[in-house]
């Protein structure tokens, strides 16, 4: 149900009931799709089935995944944040400038990049909650403003010459696992647990389910909604910093159009665009599915020009599956 992340139906009584309740979790269908996809690809191209390939996919889509975690919160309160891709670019740029032009130490630079995202998120939240702008409009405007700031301050030029210690974060590994993937998993874990067990996690679902009732129950609706936009901006900033660290340069056109992939990841992961429903795990898996499909298209030698059409098709398919599942109750 709506609070699938909150209700934990006890899998204690028997194994078959446990499996059934697992299958009923909203993520189940995504995992099944992923397994089917993997099975098909391993047959179609033996190069697919390798740890390296998987880790590569996960690393390349970790920024989408981190962005999707924040987007999930915003979507659950029945909002939307179209500015995430621009905020990623801004967060990355701030961190890059802090290290190169301003000569600040790396941790401070990272902190500044992430904070820049949080500040934009705060502005989004205030526009939506205090000025009552529709989230679509407010964040569409912010999409332009944030990207404009990036292009404006750099006059369209990239920022390179980043310290090796910084790029080592995005390009490095701990054991076999790329560091950005570890960050993504950590973010998903923290936010996922927050959503499931923290008081405000329940409030987020309540507001998305019925905002009027939430207000009339005396819940701190304004604070929760602003908070959610701040988290979304903050995570977009973090994703942007990681992206710059991974590719080793901040470019004004970086992450252009990622907002659609971020939203797509959440929707594929079962997050409802009308609010009240969704899980962080689903959103991250959604991002990984997008990665898998793009990887598959490359391995199957589908011309890259066709990739967009495939991703679009998957979004529609995910929406249809979700609809059927809901109708079944």
């Amino acid at each position: 149900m709506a609070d699938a992340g909150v209700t934990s139906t006890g899998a204690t009584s028997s194994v078959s009931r446990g499996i059934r309740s697992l299958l009923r979790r909203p993520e189940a269908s995504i995992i099944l799709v992923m397994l089917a996809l993997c099975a098909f690809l391993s047959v179609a191209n033996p190069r697919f089935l390798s740890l390296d390939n998987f880790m590569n996919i996960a690393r390349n889509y970790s920024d989408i995944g981190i962005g999707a975690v924040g987007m999930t919160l915003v979507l659950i309160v029945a909002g939307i944040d179209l500015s995430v891709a621009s905020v990623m670019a801004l967060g990355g740029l701030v961190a890059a400038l802090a290290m190169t032009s301003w000569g600040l130490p790396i941790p401070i630079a990272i902190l500044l990049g992430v904070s820049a995202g949080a500040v934009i998120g705060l502005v989004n939240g205030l526009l939506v909650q205090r000025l009552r702008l529709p989230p679509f409009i407010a964040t569409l405007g912010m999409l332009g403003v944030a990207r404009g700031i990036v292009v404006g301050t750099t006059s369209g030029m990239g920022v390179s010459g980043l310290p090796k210690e910084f790029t080592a974060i995005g390009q490095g590994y701990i054991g076999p696992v790329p560091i950005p993937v570890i960050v993504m998993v950590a973010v998903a874990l923290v936010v996922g647990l927050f959503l499931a067990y923290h008081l405000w996690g329940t409030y987020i679902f309540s507001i998305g389910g019925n905002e009027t009732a939430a207000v009339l129950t005396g819940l701190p609706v304004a604070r929760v909604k602003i908070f959610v936009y701040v988290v979304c901006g903050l995570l977009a900033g973090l994703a942007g910093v990681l992206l710059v660290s991974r590719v080793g340069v901040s470019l004004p056109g970086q992450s252009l159009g990622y907002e659609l992939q971020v939203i797509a990841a959440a929707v594929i992961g079962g997050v409802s665009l009308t609010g009240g429903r969704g899980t962080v795990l689903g959103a991250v898996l959604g991002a990984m599915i997008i990665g898998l499909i793009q990887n598959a298209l490359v391995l199957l030698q589908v011309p890259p020009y066709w990739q967009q059409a495939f991703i679009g098709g998957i979004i529609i398919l995910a929406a249809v599956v979700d609809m059927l599942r809901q109708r079944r109750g």
Partner: protein
Amino acid sequence: MLETSSLGTGSAAPPLLEARGISKRFGGIQALDAVDFTLRAGEVMALAGENGAGKSTLIKILAGAYQGDAGEIFIDGQPVEIHSPDESERLGISVIYQEFNLTPNQTVAENVFLRDPQRRSGFLGRLNLIDQGARRKATRALLEQVGSSVDPDQKVSELTVAHQQMTEIAKALAMEARILIMDEPTSTLPDAEVEILFDIIRQLRARGIAVVFVSHRIEETRQIADRVTVLRDGQFVGEESVADVSDQQIIRMMVGRVVDTLYPKTEAMPSETVLSVRGLTRKGVLKDVSFDVRRGEVLGLAGLVGAGRTEIARCIFGADRFEQGTITLDGEPVIIRSPQDAVRLGIGYVPEDRKRQGLFLEMSVRDNIAMSVAHQMTRGGFVDRSAVAEVAASFRDRLSVRPPQLDVAVSRLSGGNQQKVALAKWLALRPKVLILDEPTRGIDVGAKAEVHALIDELAHEGMGIILISSELPEVLNMSDRIIVVAEGELVGELSRQEATQERCLELASIKSMRAAKGSPEHGDVPWPTQA
């Protein structure tokens, strides 16, 4: 077949509509089980039953919105099949649902002739060009038949609920309906307008139109209906002439057991004042409203819909701002800027529309009940789930919410049980003052009696209760004191002993009603009152 269908009415003519053995299953639930329903021309048939009895399903099958699994339908003795709303309308059946089927941004005339848009004659008509003048004239004629003076060119969204309803009736007449089915037509109407609606229904009856009237209010059924068909749990219980049965008998048929009293009110022992409102003023809405609520008493707020009752509640609860006035709680002046403030101070508000304003439908019963108190049960911000479950379970038991599973989404519950959950949410908070806005709207008789018993109990425990209801019998029978509101002002206060339906209506209408539409035969004693 045809010979047996006249059901011994003595007349040879077959009934206008006859449905036999109608069954309908939704998943595991048998919504209708071989139900019979007979309707004669020129009669008003009440369709009674608790929520979930199958009334709506039956209506929707006649309307073509659902297809029955089994059963036959005859019109004028001829077997018919109804596969779609369109076919139903062609057969002369018109349904007016609670949520009107009007396009709010179009005019009355456009709505009335939505199906048959009054094309011009000749070539222009074939181009689908509309003869606006003819349509306006025809609309006006139809509106006059229902005694309405609404301007055909007015937008529907600008009309009152009563006038929208008249537009719906005119629309049915435009389609030459012979059978008019009205699903709870009075639930959203102020009392004064109900009389006007009843006059219209009587006129339709006189013209030979059969009216099916669905209502939860027994007194209305008695007032307007000739016969009553009662359903319970999807089964046909009986069909009686209203004159032949007592209210208690109808209730017993609906509930399946004896409900000894709908209003179990006991003597109140009000003590000191808990809430004082002085000079409450909100521009254009409320003017200088002052009153007190004492611990242990139920204060009834009576008045017509739109008189300002809900607005008073919303101002006290911080949901709306007000320009002037003071609120004192337990002798201390308080400032309430938001519902959060009100909740913190110990004021609860059960809003009138539980689905839109009160409940989180997709969330569990447990989360709904605990929503107002969950913040008191956290460790470092994380919710203590066992404490939450405990609270939810205790209030579920106290209000006997069915089904008892706390994991069930509230959307799966019946209206009565949803209302209990909406109430439980506030009880968990143990408020000093509880404002109940239409606490029994649209819930069945059994649940209604339970809610009333709870109100009485809460007052006895020392809560100050403000009761807002459009059902005068409810206000009269459950309140210790009644204040009457009209056009945003207090126009009178009545003690329990002084208060009668007539006096309340009189006070409520002083300002707004110019022409009281005659004096309809008020034979209806509020039912069933405790002596």
